[in-house]
Protein backbone atom coordinates (compact mmCIF):
# COMPACT_ATOMS: atom_id res chain seq x y z
CA UNK A 1 0.00 0.00 0.00
CA UNK A 2 1.28 3.47 -0.87
CA UNK A 3 2.30 5.86 1.90
CA UNK A 4 0.62 9.28 2.05
CA UNK A 5 3.60 11.01 0.42
CA UNK A 6 3.77 8.37 -2.33
CA UNK A 7 0.09 8.95 -2.97
CA UNK A 8 0.54 12.67 -3.67
CA UNK A 9 4.00 12.40 -5.22
CA UNK A 10 6.12 15.48 -5.70
CA UNK A 11 5.48 18.50 -7.85
CA UNK A 12 7.45 21.60 -6.88
CA UNK A 13 5.39 24.78 -6.81
CA UNK A 14 7.45 26.45 -9.51
CA UNK A 15 7.13 23.73 -12.16
CA UNK A 16 3.43 22.98 -12.23
CA UNK A 17 0.90 23.32 -15.03
CA UNK A 18 -0.90 26.64 -14.66
CA UNK A 19 -4.14 26.32 -12.69
CA UNK A 20 -6.94 28.67 -13.76
CA UNK A 21 -10.05 28.86 -11.58
CA UNK A 22 -13.44 29.66 -13.15
CA UNK A 23 -13.98 33.28 -14.24
CA UNK A 24 -10.36 34.16 -13.75
CA UNK A 25 -10.52 33.85 -9.96
CA UNK A 26 -7.15 33.95 -8.25
CA UNK A 27 -8.16 32.16 -5.07
CA UNK A 28 -10.83 29.61 -4.27
CA UNK A 29 -12.07 29.96 -0.69
CA UNK A 30 -14.08 27.33 1.09
CA UNK A 31 -15.54 27.54 4.57
CA UNK A 32 -15.95 24.33 6.54
CA UNK A 33 -17.91 24.39 9.79
CA UNK A 34 -17.48 21.18 11.80
CA UNK A 35 -20.98 20.26 12.93
CA UNK A 36 -20.33 17.63 15.52
CA UNK A 37 -21.87 15.45 18.17
CA UNK A 38 -20.05 14.38 21.31
CA UNK A 39 -21.30 11.48 23.36
CA UNK A 40 -22.40 12.39 26.88
CA UNK A 41 -21.04 9.01 27.94
CA UNK A 42 -18.79 7.78 25.12
CA UNK A 43 -18.28 4.08 24.41
CA UNK A 44 -15.29 2.35 25.99
CA UNK A 45 -13.20 2.65 22.80
CA UNK A 46 -13.77 6.38 22.51
CA UNK A 47 -11.71 8.84 20.49
CA UNK A 48 -10.22 12.12 21.65
CA UNK A 49 -11.75 12.17 25.12
CA UNK A 50 -10.20 13.03 28.47
CA UNK A 51 -9.44 10.50 31.20
CA UNK A 52 -12.22 11.89 33.42
CA UNK A 53 -14.56 8.99 34.26
CA UNK A 54 -17.41 9.88 31.88
CA UNK A 55 -19.31 12.05 31.58
CA UNK A 56 -16.73 14.80 31.27
CA UNK A 57 -19.50 17.33 31.69
CA UNK A 58 -17.53 20.55 31.01
CA UNK A 59 -16.18 19.17 27.73
CA UNK A 60 -19.60 17.83 26.76
CA UNK A 61 -21.34 21.11 27.55
CA UNK A 62 -19.03 23.26 25.43
CA UNK A 63 -19.75 21.04 22.42
CA UNK A 64 -23.46 20.89 23.17
CA UNK A 65 -23.52 24.69 23.33
CA UNK A 66 -22.33 24.65 19.74
CA UNK A 67 -25.49 22.91 18.58
CA UNK A 68 -27.96 24.68 20.88
CA UNK A 69 -26.67 28.23 20.48
CA UNK A 70 -23.40 28.64 18.57
CA UNK A 71 -24.54 27.08 15.28
CA UNK A 72 -27.39 29.57 14.97
CA UNK A 73 -25.27 32.61 15.71
CA UNK A 74 -22.69 31.39 13.16
CA UNK A 75 -25.46 30.80 10.64
CA UNK A 76 -26.65 34.38 10.89
CA UNK A 77 -23.24 35.69 9.84
CA UNK A 78 -22.81 33.11 7.08
CA UNK A 79 -26.23 34.11 5.75
CA UNK A 80 -25.35 37.79 5.79
CA UNK A 81 -22.38 36.98 3.57
CA UNK A 82 -24.28 34.37 1.54
CA UNK A 83 -21.69 31.67 2.13
CA UNK A 84 -22.46 28.17 0.88
CA UNK A 85 -20.52 25.97 3.26
CA UNK A 86 -18.98 22.56 3.12
CA UNK A 87 -20.05 20.96 6.41
CA UNK A 88 -17.73 18.55 8.11
CA UNK A 89 -20.60 16.45 9.39
CA UNK A 90 -20.98 13.90 12.14
CA UNK A 91 -23.88 11.99 10.59
CA UNK A 92 -25.61 11.46 13.94
CA UNK A 93 -26.33 15.22 13.99
CA UNK A 94 -28.63 14.74 10.99
CA UNK A 95 -30.46 11.98 12.82
CA UNK A 96 -30.83 13.61 16.21
CA UNK A 97 -31.11 17.32 15.46
CA UNK A 98 -33.64 17.85 12.64
CA UNK A 99 -33.54 21.64 13.03
CA UNK A 100 -29.84 21.73 12.22
CA UNK A 101 -30.30 19.32 9.35
CA UNK A 102 -33.09 21.44 7.87
CA UNK A 103 -31.09 24.66 8.23
CA UNK A 104 -28.16 23.15 6.31
CA UNK A 105 -30.27 21.53 3.60
CA UNK A 106 -32.35 24.71 3.11
CA UNK A 107 -29.10 26.47 2.23
CA UNK A 108 -28.02 23.69 -0.11
CA UNK A 109 -24.70 23.24 1.66
CA UNK A 110 -22.34 20.43 0.71
CA UNK A 111 -21.19 17.80 3.17
CA UNK A 112 -17.97 16.07 4.03
CA UNK A 113 -18.15 12.86 6.07
CA UNK A 114 -16.58 13.33 9.52
CA UNK A 115 -17.76 10.16 11.27
CA UNK A 116 -21.01 9.42 13.04
CA UNK A 117 -19.96 10.91 16.40
CA UNK A 118 -16.86 12.92 17.10
CA UNK A 119 -16.13 10.73 20.09
CA UNK A 120 -15.97 7.46 18.09
CA UNK A 121 -12.69 6.09 16.78
CA UNK A 122 -13.89 4.54 13.50
CA UNK A 123 -12.49 4.03 10.90
CA UNK A 124 -9.40 3.51 13.08
CA UNK A 125 -9.30 -0.06 14.29
CA UNK A 126 -11.48 -1.56 11.55
CA UNK A 127 -10.23 -4.30 9.23
CA UNK A 128 -10.49 -3.59 5.51
CA UNK A 129 -13.90 -5.16 4.97
CA UNK A 130 -15.37 -3.44 8.00
CA UNK A 131 -13.84 -0.15 6.93
CA UNK A 132 -15.34 -0.46 3.45
CA UNK A 133 -18.73 -1.27 4.98
CA UNK A 134 -18.36 1.73 7.29
CA UNK A 135 -17.94 4.18 4.37
CA UNK A 136 -20.66 2.46 2.37
CA UNK A 137 -23.16 2.68 5.22
CA UNK A 138 -22.28 6.37 5.66
CA UNK A 139 -23.07 7.07 2.01
CA UNK A 140 -26.31 5.11 2.20
CA UNK A 141 -27.45 6.74 5.42
CA UNK A 142 -26.50 10.18 4.19
CA UNK A 143 -28.44 9.68 0.94
CA UNK A 144 -31.46 8.41 2.87
CA UNK A 145 -31.35 11.39 5.23
CA UNK A 146 -30.71 14.13 2.71
CA UNK A 147 -31.32 12.86 -0.82
CA UNK A 148 -27.82 14.11 -1.68
CA UNK A 149 -24.61 12.30 -2.57
CA UNK A 150 -21.73 12.32 -0.08
CA UNK A 151 -18.55 13.16 -1.98
CA UNK A 152 -16.00 14.19 0.62
CA UNK A 153 -14.34 12.70 3.64
CA UNK A 154 -12.32 14.08 6.56
CA UNK A 155 -10.92 11.91 9.31
CA UNK A 156 -7.52 13.44 10.10
CA UNK A 157 -5.98 11.41 12.93
CA UNK A 158 -8.71 8.81 12.65
CA UNK A 159 -7.87 8.13 8.98
CA UNK A 160 -6.33 4.80 8.00
CA UNK A 161 -3.66 3.98 5.40
CA UNK A 162 -6.30 2.30 3.22
CA UNK A 163 -8.79 5.19 3.35
CA UNK A 164 -7.95 6.79 -0.03
CA UNK A 165 -8.27 3.49 -1.93
CA UNK A 166 -11.50 2.52 -0.22
CA UNK A 167 -13.33 5.83 -0.52
CA UNK A 168 -12.30 6.31 -4.16
CA UNK A 169 -13.66 2.86 -4.95
CA UNK A 170 -17.00 3.80 -3.35
CA UNK A 171 -17.41 7.02 -5.32
CA UNK A 172 -16.12 9.74 -2.99
CA UNK A 173 -14.40 12.39 -5.13
CA UNK A 174 -12.15 14.06 -2.55
CA UNK A 175 -10.71 13.91 0.90
CA UNK A 176 -9.84 16.90 3.07
CA UNK A 177 -7.41 15.10 5.34
CA UNK A 178 -4.03 16.54 4.43
CA UNK A 179 -2.27 19.90 4.78
CA UNK A 180 0.39 19.54 2.14
CA UNK A 181 -0.36 22.28 -0.36
CA UNK A 182 -2.05 25.52 -1.45
CA UNK A 183 -3.69 23.73 -4.39
CA UNK A 184 -5.74 20.56 -4.72
CA UNK A 185 -3.67 17.50 -5.59
CA UNK A 186 -4.41 14.18 -7.31
CA UNK A 187 -4.21 11.24 -4.91
CA UNK A 188 -2.92 7.97 -6.36
CA UNK A 189 -5.48 5.29 -5.56
CA UNK A 190 -5.88 1.65 -6.56
CA UNK A 191 -9.04 2.29 -8.61
CA UNK A 192 -10.74 5.45 -9.77
CA UNK A 193 -9.72 9.03 -9.00
CA UNK A 194 -9.51 11.01 -5.76
CA UNK A 195 -8.57 14.64 -5.13
CA UNK A 196 -6.98 15.92 -1.96
CA UNK A 197 -8.53 19.31 -1.14
CA UNK A 198 -6.22 20.57 1.62
CA UNK A 199 -7.80 21.21 5.01
CA UNK A 200 -6.25 23.56 7.57
CA UNK A 201 -4.75 23.07 10.99
CA UNK A 202 -3.71 26.70 10.82
CA UNK A 203 -6.82 28.74 9.94
CA UNK A 204 -8.82 26.74 12.44
CA UNK A 205 -10.77 28.44 15.23
CA UNK A 206 -10.68 25.41 17.56
CA UNK A 207 -6.95 24.87 17.30
CA UNK A 208 -6.34 28.42 18.47
CA UNK A 209 -8.17 27.87 21.74
CA UNK A 210 -7.93 24.14 22.55
CA UNK A 211 -5.15 22.67 24.68
CA UNK A 212 -4.93 25.87 26.74
CA UNK A 213 -3.63 27.85 23.76
CA UNK A 214 -3.46 31.58 24.40
CA UNK A 215 -5.12 32.91 21.25
CA UNK A 216 -8.49 34.47 20.68
CA UNK A 217 -10.27 35.52 17.55
CA UNK A 218 -8.45 38.79 17.02
CA UNK A 219 -5.52 36.56 16.09
CA UNK A 220 -7.77 34.40 13.91
CA UNK A 221 -8.82 37.51 11.99
CA UNK A 222 -5.21 38.55 11.56
CA UNK A 223 -3.95 35.19 10.24
CA UNK A 224 -6.93 34.78 7.92
CA UNK A 225 -6.32 38.22 6.40
CA UNK A 226 -2.59 37.59 6.08
CA UNK A 227 -3.17 34.16 4.57
CA UNK A 228 -5.63 35.59 2.10
CA UNK A 229 -3.34 38.45 1.09
CA UNK A 230 -0.50 36.11 0.20
CA UNK A 231 -2.66 33.49 -1.54
CA UNK A 232 -4.38 36.24 -3.51
CA UNK A 233 -1.02 37.60 -4.62
CA UNK A 234 0.30 34.16 -5.59
CA UNK A 235 -3.04 33.39 -7.21
CA UNK A 236 -2.34 35.98 -9.89
CA UNK A 237 0.18 33.49 -11.31
CA UNK A 238 -1.62 30.22 -10.65
CA UNK A 239 -4.83 29.53 -8.76
CA UNK A 240 -4.64 28.95 -5.01
CA UNK A 241 -7.09 27.57 -2.48
CA UNK A 242 -7.83 28.75 1.05
CA UNK A 243 -9.68 26.73 3.67
CA UNK A 244 -11.28 28.37 6.71
CA UNK A 245 -12.18 25.89 9.45
CA UNK A 246 -14.94 26.72 11.93
CA UNK A 247 -16.58 25.03 14.90
CA UNK A 248 -19.94 26.35 16.14
CA UNK A 249 -18.77 25.54 19.68
CA UNK A 250 -15.88 27.96 19.21
CA UNK A 251 -16.83 30.74 16.80
CA UNK A 252 -20.48 30.76 17.95
CA UNK A 253 -19.73 32.32 21.34
CA UNK A 254 -20.72 35.95 21.73
CA UNK A 255 -17.13 37.09 22.32
CA UNK A 256 -15.96 35.45 19.08
CA UNK A 257 -18.65 35.79 16.44
CA UNK A 258 -17.67 39.27 15.25
CA UNK A 259 -14.39 37.79 14.02
CA UNK A 260 -16.21 35.71 11.41
CA UNK A 261 -17.97 38.79 10.06
CA UNK A 262 -14.66 40.61 9.86
CA UNK A 263 -12.93 37.78 7.96
CA UNK A 264 -15.72 37.34 5.45
CA UNK A 265 -16.12 41.08 4.93
CA UNK A 266 -12.41 41.31 4.19
CA UNK A 267 -12.18 38.54 1.61
CA UNK A 268 -15.42 39.54 -0.09
CA UNK A 269 -14.08 43.03 -0.65
CA UNK A 270 -11.78 41.55 -3.30
CA UNK A 271 -12.56 40.80 -6.94
CA UNK A 272 -11.54 37.49 -8.49
CA UNK A 273 -12.32 35.34 -5.49
CA UNK A 274 -14.19 32.08 -5.96
CA UNK A 275 -16.31 31.31 -2.88
CA UNK A 276 -16.87 27.63 -3.41
CA UNK A 277 -17.53 24.36 -1.64
CA UNK A 278 -14.98 21.57 -1.51
CA UNK A 279 -17.31 19.53 -3.71
CA UNK A 280 -17.18 22.25 -6.36
CA UNK A 281 -13.43 22.65 -6.10
CA UNK A 282 -12.88 18.90 -6.42
CA UNK A 283 -15.28 18.63 -9.37
CA UNK A 284 -13.64 21.50 -11.22
CA UNK A 285 -10.21 20.08 -10.52
CA UNK A 286 -11.21 16.63 -11.74
CA UNK A 287 -12.60 18.09 -14.96
CA UNK A 288 -9.70 20.39 -15.77
CA UNK A 289 -6.47 19.48 -14.01
CA UNK A 290 -6.45 16.09 -12.39
CA UNK A 291 -5.10 14.16 -15.36
CA UNK A 292 -2.60 16.84 -16.40
CA UNK A 293 -1.29 17.19 -12.88
CA UNK A 294 -1.03 13.45 -12.33
CA UNK A 295 0.91 13.12 -15.60
CA UNK A 296 3.12 16.01 -14.57
CA UNK A 297 3.87 14.46 -11.17
CA UNK A 298 4.59 11.13 -12.83
CA UNK A 299 6.99 12.75 -15.34
CA UNK A 300 8.63 14.55 -12.46
CA UNK A 301 9.10 11.31 -10.51
CA UNK A 302 10.48 9.59 -13.64
CA UNK A 303 12.87 12.49 -14.16
CA UNK A 304 14.14 12.11 -10.62
CA UNK A 305 14.54 8.37 -11.09
CA UNK A 306 16.50 8.65 -14.37
CA UNK A 307 18.57 11.73 -13.62
CA UNK A 308 18.91 11.23 -9.87
CA UNK A 309 19.94 14.87 -9.78
CA UNK A 310 17.99 18.05 -10.47
CA UNK A 311 14.32 17.92 -11.36
CA UNK A 312 13.24 18.53 -14.96
CA UNK A 313 11.91 22.01 -15.58
Amino acid at each position, binding site marked *: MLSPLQRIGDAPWNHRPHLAWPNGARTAIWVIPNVELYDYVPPAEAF*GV*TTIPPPDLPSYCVRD*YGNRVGFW*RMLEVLDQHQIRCTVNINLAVLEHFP*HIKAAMLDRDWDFCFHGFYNTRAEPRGLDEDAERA*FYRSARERFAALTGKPLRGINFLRRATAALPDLVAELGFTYHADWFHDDQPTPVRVARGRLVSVPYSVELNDALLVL*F*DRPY*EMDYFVQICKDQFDRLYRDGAESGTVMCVVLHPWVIGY*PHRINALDEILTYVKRHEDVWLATADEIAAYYLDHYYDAMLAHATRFADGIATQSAHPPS
Partner: protein
Amino acid sequence: MTHVVPEAPYCAWSPITERRFGWPNGARVAVCFVVSLGYYDELGPDGGVESPTPGGAIQVTSYPDYPTVTHRAYGHRVGIFRLIQLFDAHAVSPTVAIDAETARQYPWLVAECIRRGWEIVAHGVSQRRPITSALSEDVERRYIGEAVAALTDAGVDRPAGWLGPQGHESHRTPRLLAEAGLRYVCDWANDEQPYRLQTPAGDVVAVPLMTELSDAGLHWTRRVPIARWAALVKEAFDVLWRDGATQGRLLALPLHPWCIGQPFRVKYLEEVVRHVAGRDGVWIASAREVANALPAA
Protein backbone atom coordinates in the same frame (compact mmCIF):
# COMPACT_ATOMS: atom_id res chain seq x y z
CA MET B 1 -22.59 -0.27 14.94
CA THR B 2 -24.90 0.75 17.74
CA HIS B 3 -25.97 4.32 18.22
CA VAL B 4 -27.07 5.36 21.63
CA VAL B 5 -29.23 8.43 21.83
CA PRO B 6 -26.66 11.13 22.47
CA GLU B 7 -28.64 13.45 24.63
CA ALA B 8 -27.65 13.42 28.20
CA PRO B 9 -30.27 12.00 30.50
CA TYR B 10 -32.60 14.67 31.92
CA CYS B 11 -31.47 17.25 29.39
CA ALA B 12 -34.06 18.27 26.79
CA TRP B 13 -32.53 19.67 23.62
CA SER B 14 -33.77 22.54 21.54
CA PRO B 15 -32.08 25.14 19.37
CA ILE B 16 -32.23 28.57 20.97
CA THR B 17 -33.83 30.04 17.85
CA GLU B 18 -36.94 27.88 18.37
CA ARG B 19 -37.69 29.39 21.78
CA ARG B 20 -39.51 32.51 22.88
CA PHE B 21 -37.92 33.16 26.23
CA GLY B 22 -38.17 36.52 27.94
CA TRP B 23 -36.90 37.76 31.29
CA PRO B 24 -39.72 38.73 33.64
CA ASN B 25 -38.80 42.42 33.60
CA GLY B 26 -38.35 42.63 29.83
CA ALA B 27 -34.55 42.78 30.08
CA ARG B 28 -32.47 41.82 27.07
CA VAL B 29 -29.62 40.37 29.09
CA ALA B 30 -29.45 39.01 32.61
CA VAL B 31 -25.93 39.35 34.04
CA CYS B 32 -24.98 37.09 36.91
CA PHE B 33 -21.55 37.39 38.54
CA VAL B 34 -20.69 33.97 39.95
CA VAL B 35 -17.83 34.16 42.43
CA SER B 36 -16.25 30.85 43.35
CA LEU B 37 -14.88 30.53 46.89
CA GLY B 38 -13.34 27.13 46.45
CA TYR B 39 -10.89 25.49 48.81
CA TYR B 40 -7.81 23.73 47.50
CA ASP B 41 -6.83 20.79 49.70
CA GLU B 42 -3.20 20.59 50.60
CA LEU B 43 -3.25 16.93 49.75
CA GLY B 44 -5.35 15.65 46.90
CA PRO B 45 -7.63 12.72 47.67
CA ASP B 46 -6.67 9.27 46.43
CA GLY B 47 -7.63 9.04 42.78
CA GLY B 48 -8.37 12.75 42.71
CA VAL B 49 -8.39 14.44 39.34
CA GLU B 50 -8.04 17.95 38.09
CA SER B 51 -9.15 18.93 34.63
CA PRO B 52 -8.90 22.65 34.16
CA THR B 53 -10.18 22.77 30.59
CA PRO B 54 -12.11 20.76 28.05
CA GLY B 55 -9.55 18.44 26.60
CA GLY B 56 -7.19 19.37 29.40
CA ALA B 57 -4.70 17.08 30.96
CA ILE B 58 -5.08 15.34 34.26
CA GLN B 59 -2.89 16.84 36.88
CA VAL B 60 -2.25 15.26 40.24
CA THR B 61 0.31 17.14 42.25
CA SER B 62 2.47 15.86 45.07
CA TYR B 63 2.51 17.10 48.66
CA PRO B 64 3.32 19.80 49.57
CA ASP B 65 2.03 21.75 46.60
CA TYR B 66 2.90 25.16 48.04
CA PRO B 67 2.38 27.16 44.84
CA THR B 68 -1.19 26.11 44.13
CA VAL B 69 -2.42 25.96 47.70
CA THR B 70 -1.05 29.35 48.74
CA HIS B 71 -2.00 31.04 45.49
CA ARG B 72 -5.60 29.88 45.90
CA ALA B 73 -5.58 30.83 49.60
CA TYR B 74 -4.81 34.39 48.52
CA GLY B 75 -8.36 34.57 47.21
CA HIS B 76 -9.88 33.75 50.60
CA ARG B 77 -7.50 36.01 52.55
CA VAL B 78 -7.28 39.09 50.32
CA GLY B 79 -8.84 38.81 46.87
CA ILE B 80 -12.42 38.31 48.03
CA PHE B 81 -12.30 41.58 49.98
CA ARG B 82 -11.37 43.52 46.85
CA LEU B 83 -14.38 41.95 45.13
CA ILE B 84 -16.65 42.76 48.07
CA GLN B 85 -15.49 46.37 47.94
CA LEU B 86 -16.05 46.57 44.20
CA PHE B 87 -19.52 45.02 44.26
CA ASP B 88 -20.55 47.17 47.23
CA ALA B 89 -19.37 50.31 45.44
CA HIS B 90 -21.51 49.47 42.41
CA ALA B 91 -24.46 48.14 44.43
CA VAL B 92 -24.16 44.81 42.60
CA SER B 93 -25.08 41.54 44.31
CA PRO B 94 -23.05 38.61 43.00
CA THR B 95 -23.79 34.93 43.54
CA VAL B 96 -21.15 33.21 45.64
CA ALA B 97 -20.37 29.50 45.36
CA ILE B 98 -18.90 28.24 48.63
CA ASP B 99 -17.60 24.73 49.23
CA ALA B 100 -17.77 22.83 52.52
CA GLU B 101 -14.11 23.30 53.44
CA THR B 102 -14.40 27.05 52.89
CA ALA B 103 -17.59 27.23 54.97
CA ARG B 104 -15.94 25.28 57.81
CA GLN B 105 -12.58 27.05 57.75
CA TYR B 106 -13.64 30.58 56.76
CA PRO B 107 -17.04 31.09 58.43
CA TRP B 108 -16.52 34.86 58.46
CA LEU B 109 -16.59 34.87 54.66
CA VAL B 110 -19.96 33.12 54.69
CA ALA B 111 -21.16 35.73 57.20
CA GLU B 112 -20.03 38.60 54.92
CA CYS B 113 -22.15 37.17 52.11
CA ILE B 114 -25.17 36.48 54.32
CA ARG B 115 -25.01 40.01 55.76
CA ARG B 116 -25.24 41.45 52.24
CA GLY B 117 -28.07 39.15 51.25
CA TRP B 118 -26.00 37.57 48.50
CA GLU B 119 -27.11 34.29 46.98
CA ILE B 120 -24.95 31.39 48.19
CA VAL B 121 -24.56 28.26 46.11
CA ALA B 122 -23.33 24.89 47.37
CA HIS B 123 -19.98 24.19 45.73
CA GLY B 124 -19.08 20.62 46.71
CA VAL B 125 -16.69 19.72 49.49
CA SER B 126 -13.43 21.05 48.03
CA GLN B 127 -12.00 21.86 44.62
CA ARG B 128 -9.68 18.88 44.54
CA ARG B 129 -12.54 16.53 45.28
CA PRO B 130 -14.83 16.88 42.25
CA ILE B 131 -17.69 14.50 41.63
CA THR B 132 -17.11 11.93 38.92
CA SER B 133 -18.82 8.70 37.92
CA ALA B 134 -16.06 6.87 39.77
CA LEU B 135 -17.94 7.64 43.01
CA SER B 136 -20.62 5.20 44.14
CA GLU B 137 -24.14 6.55 44.38
CA ASP B 138 -24.01 6.39 48.19
CA VAL B 139 -20.74 8.28 48.37
CA GLU B 140 -22.02 10.91 45.96
CA ARG B 141 -25.25 11.32 47.94
CA ARG B 142 -23.28 11.81 51.16
CA TYR B 143 -20.93 14.22 49.36
CA ILE B 144 -23.83 16.44 48.26
CA GLY B 145 -25.33 16.24 51.74
CA GLU B 146 -22.04 17.27 53.35
CA ALA B 147 -21.68 20.28 51.05
CA VAL B 148 -25.21 21.52 51.82
CA ALA B 149 -24.92 20.83 55.57
CA ALA B 150 -21.68 22.81 55.82
CA LEU B 151 -23.49 25.85 54.44
CA THR B 152 -26.52 25.55 56.70
CA ASP B 153 -24.18 25.03 59.67
CA ALA B 154 -22.54 28.33 58.72
CA GLY B 155 -25.93 30.06 58.75
CA VAL B 156 -27.10 29.84 55.14
CA ASP B 157 -30.88 29.50 54.99
CA ARG B 158 -31.87 26.57 52.74
CA PRO B 159 -29.33 26.65 49.89
CA ALA B 160 -31.09 26.17 46.56
CA GLY B 161 -28.25 26.04 44.06
CA TRP B 162 -25.32 23.82 43.16
CA LEU B 163 -22.04 24.30 41.33
CA GLY B 164 -19.81 21.24 41.28
CA PRO B 165 -16.09 21.70 41.80
CA GLN B 166 -14.67 22.37 38.33
CA GLY B 167 -18.17 21.84 36.96
CA HIS B 168 -17.86 18.08 37.08
CA GLU B 169 -20.72 15.68 37.61
CA SER B 170 -21.45 11.99 37.44
CA HIS B 171 -24.24 10.71 35.17
CA ARG B 172 -26.55 10.67 38.20
CA THR B 173 -25.82 14.08 39.74
CA PRO B 174 -28.94 16.01 38.58
CA ARG B 175 -31.19 13.34 40.13
CA LEU B 176 -29.25 13.34 43.40
CA LEU B 177 -29.37 17.16 43.54
CA ALA B 178 -33.14 17.01 43.12
CA GLU B 179 -33.35 14.38 45.86
CA ALA B 180 -31.33 16.68 48.13
CA GLY B 181 -33.88 19.45 47.59
CA LEU B 182 -31.67 21.65 45.44
CA ARG B 183 -33.56 23.59 42.78
CA TYR B 184 -30.95 24.81 40.33
CA VAL B 185 -27.53 23.74 39.07
CA CYS B 186 -24.74 25.74 37.41
CA ASP B 187 -22.72 22.84 35.95
CA TRP B 188 -24.43 22.75 32.55
CA ALA B 189 -22.52 25.39 30.62
CA ASN B 190 -24.26 24.67 27.32
CA ASP B 191 -26.79 27.45 26.79
CA GLU B 192 -27.60 31.15 27.10
CA GLN B 193 -30.92 30.65 28.85
CA PRO B 194 -32.01 28.68 31.90
CA TYR B 195 -33.75 25.42 31.09
CA ARG B 196 -35.18 22.42 32.89
CA LEU B 197 -33.36 19.19 33.69
CA GLN B 198 -36.01 16.57 34.23
CA THR B 199 -35.09 13.87 36.71
CA PRO B 200 -37.10 11.06 38.29
CA ALA B 201 -36.77 12.96 41.57
CA GLY B 202 -38.14 16.20 40.12
CA ASP B 203 -36.91 19.08 37.99
CA VAL B 204 -33.69 20.98 38.50
CA VAL B 205 -33.18 24.22 36.59
CA ALA B 206 -29.91 24.53 34.71
CA VAL B 207 -28.36 28.01 35.01
CA PRO B 208 -25.62 27.88 32.37
CA LEU B 209 -22.38 29.67 33.11
CA MET B 210 -20.29 31.26 30.34
CA THR B 211 -17.29 29.15 31.29
CA GLU B 212 -15.38 30.16 28.15
CA LEU B 213 -15.11 33.64 29.68
CA SER B 214 -13.99 32.53 33.12
CA ASP B 215 -11.09 34.57 34.48
CA ALA B 216 -9.45 31.33 35.60
CA GLY B 217 -9.90 29.55 32.25
CA LEU B 218 -9.46 32.26 29.66
CA HIS B 219 -6.82 34.27 31.46
CA TRP B 220 -5.02 32.13 34.04
CA THR B 221 -5.01 28.74 32.30
CA ARG B 222 -4.93 29.91 28.69
CA ARG B 223 -2.87 33.05 29.36
CA VAL B 224 -4.95 35.44 27.28
CA PRO B 225 -3.82 38.80 28.72
CA ILE B 226 -6.14 40.27 31.36
CA ALA B 227 -6.88 43.46 29.41
CA ARG B 228 -7.99 41.26 26.52
CA TRP B 229 -10.14 39.25 28.95
CA ALA B 230 -12.01 42.40 29.90
CA ALA B 231 -12.41 43.38 26.25
CA LEU B 232 -13.78 39.93 25.40
CA VAL B 233 -16.30 39.97 28.26
CA LYS B 234 -17.51 43.38 27.11
CA GLU B 235 -17.73 42.17 23.52
CA ALA B 236 -19.72 39.12 24.64
CA PHE B 237 -22.07 41.37 26.56
CA ASP B 238 -22.60 43.65 23.55
CA VAL B 239 -23.42 40.69 21.29
CA LEU B 240 -25.79 39.20 23.89
CA TRP B 241 -27.45 42.57 24.27
CA ARG B 242 -27.92 42.75 20.49
CA ASP B 243 -29.26 39.18 20.34
CA GLY B 244 -31.41 39.94 23.39
CA ALA B 245 -33.63 42.13 21.23
CA THR B 246 -35.57 39.02 20.17
CA GLN B 247 -35.33 36.93 23.34
CA GLY B 248 -33.60 37.03 26.71
CA ARG B 249 -29.95 36.01 27.01
CA LEU B 250 -27.83 35.16 30.03
CA LEU B 251 -24.29 36.20 30.81
CA ALA B 252 -23.32 34.24 33.94
CA LEU B 253 -19.68 35.13 34.43
CA PRO B 254 -17.47 32.83 36.56
CA LEU B 255 -14.99 34.73 38.75
CA HIS B 256 -12.27 33.54 41.11
CA PRO B 257 -10.99 35.85 43.85
CA TRP B 258 -7.51 34.26 43.75
CA CYS B 259 -7.30 35.33 40.13
CA ILE B 260 -9.32 38.47 39.46
CA GLY B 261 -8.80 39.71 43.04
CA GLN B 262 -5.07 40.29 42.48
CA PRO B 263 -4.07 43.96 42.72
CA PHE B 264 -3.15 44.33 39.06
CA ARG B 265 -6.25 42.54 37.81
CA VAL B 266 -9.19 43.78 39.81
CA LYS B 267 -9.51 47.03 37.87
CA TYR B 268 -10.40 44.95 34.80
CA LEU B 269 -13.38 43.51 36.62
CA GLU B 270 -14.37 47.05 37.51
CA GLU B 271 -14.18 47.88 33.80
CA VAL B 272 -16.59 45.01 33.10
CA VAL B 273 -18.99 46.00 35.88
CA ARG B 274 -19.03 49.60 34.66
CA HIS B 275 -19.72 48.42 31.12
CA VAL B 276 -22.78 46.35 32.00
CA ALA B 277 -24.28 48.05 35.05
CA GLY B 278 -26.65 50.87 34.32
CA ARG B 279 -27.19 49.93 30.70
CA ASP B 280 -30.78 49.83 29.48
CA GLY B 281 -32.26 46.37 29.24
CA VAL B 282 -29.80 44.79 31.67
CA TRP B 283 -30.86 42.85 34.71
CA ILE B 284 -28.14 42.16 37.26
CA ALA B 285 -29.55 38.98 38.73
CA SER B 286 -28.59 36.25 41.14
CA ALA B 287 -28.45 32.65 39.97
CA ARG B 288 -31.60 31.98 42.01
CA GLU B 289 -33.45 34.82 40.28
CA VAL B 290 -32.31 33.48 36.91
CA ALA B 291 -33.62 30.02 37.80
CA ASN B 292 -36.90 31.46 39.06
CA ALA B 293 -37.34 33.37 35.80
CA LEU B 294 -37.97 30.10 33.98
CA PRO B 295 -41.74 29.68 33.67
CA ALA B 296 -43.20 26.66 35.45
CA ALA B 297 -43.30 23.56 33.27
